[in-house]
């Protein structure tokens, strides 16, 4: 029996289909958007409401080993933000690293229907999949960390580009990832092998490998291009958080050589000034480059004041943060694959660097010429919780509010930026781009981020309000796969989202190359490493388009 739904009289924002605030009806059958439904279809009267596609978070940290460590680490944060169950939904705890159920439900209550976990070491992918399965409502996928993979670096050292590409495909396929993630490439070896050292120059050789981070990044981007992944590698550049890191960031973007690359949380990589001195905003040189180079997509990684948790595969960065306040700190080395650092952190508006980062993020948004490529994120929970997105949207849409907000923060920091001069206000359509259409397009999710026929019926309906924070904080309806999950601001049913992953093809012989490496250097058996597809629950393969 097919289920039908129609949303009538709503003001529709669907930038992918060039619809900008038109009153238009939307029809849904069996979880998909269609061009008409029968008269018996359930009707939602969206008069006075704004209809948008469900939002897509292109970069967040919501599931898996490191998230769970950060979750376990902070009972004090959960205790103050409980997530009670309802007649339809499971209970959980909130705070800046919510439990899985709370994560799914809370994303839904923000109007989000898809979110991508941005950093998973392959050996713990099984864990991530289990958590994602317990993350309700939303669709989700994850990016697999390969940038410090010892086997892949070894292949590059040996100049075996072909096997390198095959092995990448094997890894993505074995763990059911969506795309690749590169984090502080080359640093793991120095961190673990040279008493907590870090890479400072992307053109220096990586210990033991005689190749530079730039070369590694370039090779991954090339391989991903050839594999035809729907979304290019997410790159977390070297030197995150260090003054003067714009030169590293620019070098990294240039390494793409015009191929598609996604620069993760670019705010953290846009510092001007000199190394080891007070940072200043280097946003202009970064955003100018992004504006001019269409191969680049990026998410901002906005910092929001209040509680955050630094949670990263960039272990040296977490160590640097740890030495600021000496509070609780996690380091977790993953054999042959990754590092990890976690630090509970609070961004405070009176602190120079924090206010600077906040302002830099806003500068990036406000200087962006192409909303399709400069996307909204807080790098949850690194820059702040995803729960602060509505506030961020208001900062972008309401310049009077923004001006007032910036008067409360460290003025010396604001002096270093162009923020005072910027009067730009994002339109609803632009917000729909940076939170929906843009991320979906960047991800290559053809059925997401729009309301055209054939799209997944992931829809958010907001009551139109002047206060955009209030508006985006509580959608009136959230429809996922055609199911009205939230009705009149309350959960009407529970819903399980699905896993989105890719299946790049590869030559099976590559496993014979990889297996001996496992026997020597891994602590788990090669045979037990890859995850059978039967292990997955609801999932969808997003096609790849390999280059010949």
């Amino acid at each position, binding site marked *: 029996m097919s289920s039908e739904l129609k949303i009538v009289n709503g003001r529709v924002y669907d930038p992918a289909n060039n619809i900008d605030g038109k009153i238009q009806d939307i029809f849904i059958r069996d979880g998909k958007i269609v061009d008409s439904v029968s008269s018996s279809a359930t009707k939602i009267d969206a008069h006075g409401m704004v209809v948008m596609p469900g939002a897509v978070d292109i970069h967040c940290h919501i*599931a898996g*080993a490191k*998230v*769970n*460590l950060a*979750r*376990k*680490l902070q*009972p004090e944060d*959960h*205790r103050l933000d*409980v997530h*009670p*169950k*309802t*007649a339809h939904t*499971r*209970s*959980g*705890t909130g*705070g800046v*690293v*919510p*439990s*899985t159920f709370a994560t799914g439900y809370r994303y839904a209550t923000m109007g989000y229907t898809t979110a991508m976990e941005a950093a998973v070491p392959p050996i*713990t992918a*099984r*864990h991530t999949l*289990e958590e994602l399965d*317990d993350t309700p409502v939303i669709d989700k996928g994850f990016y697999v960390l390969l940038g410090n993979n*010892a086997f892949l670096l070894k292949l590059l050292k040996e100049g075996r580009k072909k096997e390198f590409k095959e092995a990448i495909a094997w890894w993505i396929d074995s763990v059911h990832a969506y795309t690749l993630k590169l984090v502080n490439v080359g640093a793991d070896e120095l961190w*673990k*092998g040279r*008493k*907590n050292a870090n890479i400072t120059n992307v053109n220096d050789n990586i210990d033991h490998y005689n190749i530079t981070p730039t070369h590694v990044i370039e090779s991954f981007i090339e391989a991903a291009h050839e594999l035809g992944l729907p979304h290019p590698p997410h790159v977390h550049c070297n030197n995150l958080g260090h003054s003067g890191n714009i030169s590293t960031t620019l070098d990294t973007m240039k390494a793409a050589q015009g191929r598609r690359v996604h620069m993760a949380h670019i705010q953290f990589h846009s510092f001007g000034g000199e190394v080891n001195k007070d940072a200043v905003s280097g946003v202009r040189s970064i955003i100018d480059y992004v504006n001019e180079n269409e191969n680049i997509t990026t998410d901002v990684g906005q910092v929001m004041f209040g509680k955050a948790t630094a949670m990263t595969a960039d272990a040296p960065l977490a*160590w640097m943060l740890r030495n600021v306040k000496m509070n*609780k*700190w*996690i*380091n*977790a*080395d*993953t*054999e*042959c694959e990754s590092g990890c650092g976690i630090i509970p952190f609070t961004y405070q508006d009176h602190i120079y660097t924090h206010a600077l980062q906040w302002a830099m993020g806003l500068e990036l948004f406000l200087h962006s010429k192409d909303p399709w490529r400069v996307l909204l994120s807080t790098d949850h929970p690194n820059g702040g919780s995803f729960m602060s997105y509505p506030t961020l949207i208001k900062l972008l849409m309401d310049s009077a509010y923004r001006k007032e907000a910036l008067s409360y923060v460290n003025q010396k920091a604001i002096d270093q930026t162009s923020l005072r001069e910027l009067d730009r206000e994002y339109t609803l359509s632009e917000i729909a781009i940076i939170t929906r259409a843009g991320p979906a397009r960047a991800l290559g999710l053809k059925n997401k981020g729009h309301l055209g026929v054939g799209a997944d019926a992931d829809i958010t309906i907001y009551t139109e309000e002047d206060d955009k924070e209030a508006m985006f904080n509580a959608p009136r309806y959230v429809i996922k796969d055609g199911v009205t999950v939230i009705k009149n601001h309350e959960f009407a049913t529970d819903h399980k989202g699905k896993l989105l992953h890719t299946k790049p093809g590869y030559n*099976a012989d590559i*496993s014979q190359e990889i297996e001996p490496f496992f026997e020597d*250097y891994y*602590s*788990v*058996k*090669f*045979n*037990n*490493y*890859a*995850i*059978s597809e*039967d*292990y997955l629950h609801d999932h969808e393969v997003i096609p790849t388009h390999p280059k010949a």
Partner: protein
Amino acid sequence: MTKEATQTDAQVKNKKPVSKKVDPYEGKNIKIVKDATCTFCGCVCDDMELTVDVDEHRILKAKKACVLGRAWFYEHKVDTRPGVLIDGKEATFQEGVEAAAQILIDAKFPTTYGMSDSTCESQRVTVEIMDTINGNIDTTTSVCHGPSGMAFQGVGESTATLGEVKNRADLVIYWGGNPAESHPRHFTRYAVTPKGMYIPNGKKDRTVVLVDVRRTPSTPVADIFMQVKPGKDFEVLWALRALVKGKKIANDIEKQTGVSREVLDDLVDRMKNCQFGVLFFGMGLTMTRGRHFNSGALLSLAADLNEFTHFVAKPVRGHGNVTGADNVVSWQTGYPFGVNFNRGYPRFNPGEFTTTDVLSRGEADAAMIIASDPASNFPKAAIEHMKKIPIISLDTKDTVTSSIAKVRFAVSTYGINTGGTVYRMDDVPITLRPAFESTYPGDQEVLEAIRDRVKKLLSGKKARVAA
């Protein structure tokens, strides 16, 4: 997940487990399971080669298994006891599920405990049951490395997966544990003898230090044995932290702790100058006076040492999937153990919601015990209370707990009869390859049936919501 699904899961596409006849067992229906996983202890070795007599439902040989692993595999064989007992009388599965569900929904403070010898799949269902009925949940973690978990919440942890220890650690310290007897392959598979990427000569490239209050069968493996007076671990760890930071310590340290200043200075020197150090610690820290502070002192020591070199620490976890229980309970509730749902959302407080306490204080009015035997190893007061309240037990063998249970389910053994996921002590998830089918259901199956029945009974107006 169904049994079929996990079995297919086990058949990883690149290398399917080989199934063939072997001569020495002529006349028997023999199956070889390669790369099977032993779930007896937290080492979760996944390189077992099991020779299974399919018809006899037993494992004849477990290649690579240690003495504990062999006992685990050989002793879990087909059983003849009844599947379900209610008040000691045989009952059907349905009757057992009904009785269990009734006990759970009638209780005002139902608690559940155990789960460390159970798959993550079962653990997930268990949390769901307790969330549904607003119950209380705790795992064997609370009497294992629960204090270490609390210490972790206080100070964090610098840690590593075991493969990184194998590849890099040139200084390996065991503190308050006896792996030779509790985790026999810890030395050989992960931390002492194996050759690794930067440890080409295995044990020759490492210095091994053992710290304990007594000599144990683990002692001979150590290059240095540091004997601490019983109950003085914290003082020694504290002195080491002070010395690492270049601070003064009391002159009478040897008198206090049994460890001389020279030995401490030497160890500090080795710790600061190694390339990659690791501190493994056992329940000699968590179960003695000081508990979480002992673990915290050790975790802090490892963190402190990162000022000088790369240093990690790792609790040596006991049961096969106690680490999985921590992970599952954490991702579903935000807290690793000792979680209470009475108010419709999770609350955490060791000492308040942990099993020893809710039983000893006589608070729980029903308990579901999964794959654990608190009635034989809990404090007397807790055991006395267990005898007064309805107990539901799920176990692979009869235990003191199952003998006092009102509803007792005999279940099959994870890893031997059922598949699924378990987490090794270093949080690495590992899949299971069951060897043969049991006549009993897996605990996941029992728990799902109880969950479904409970949900049915509590449907509609009776649903327990948040208060």
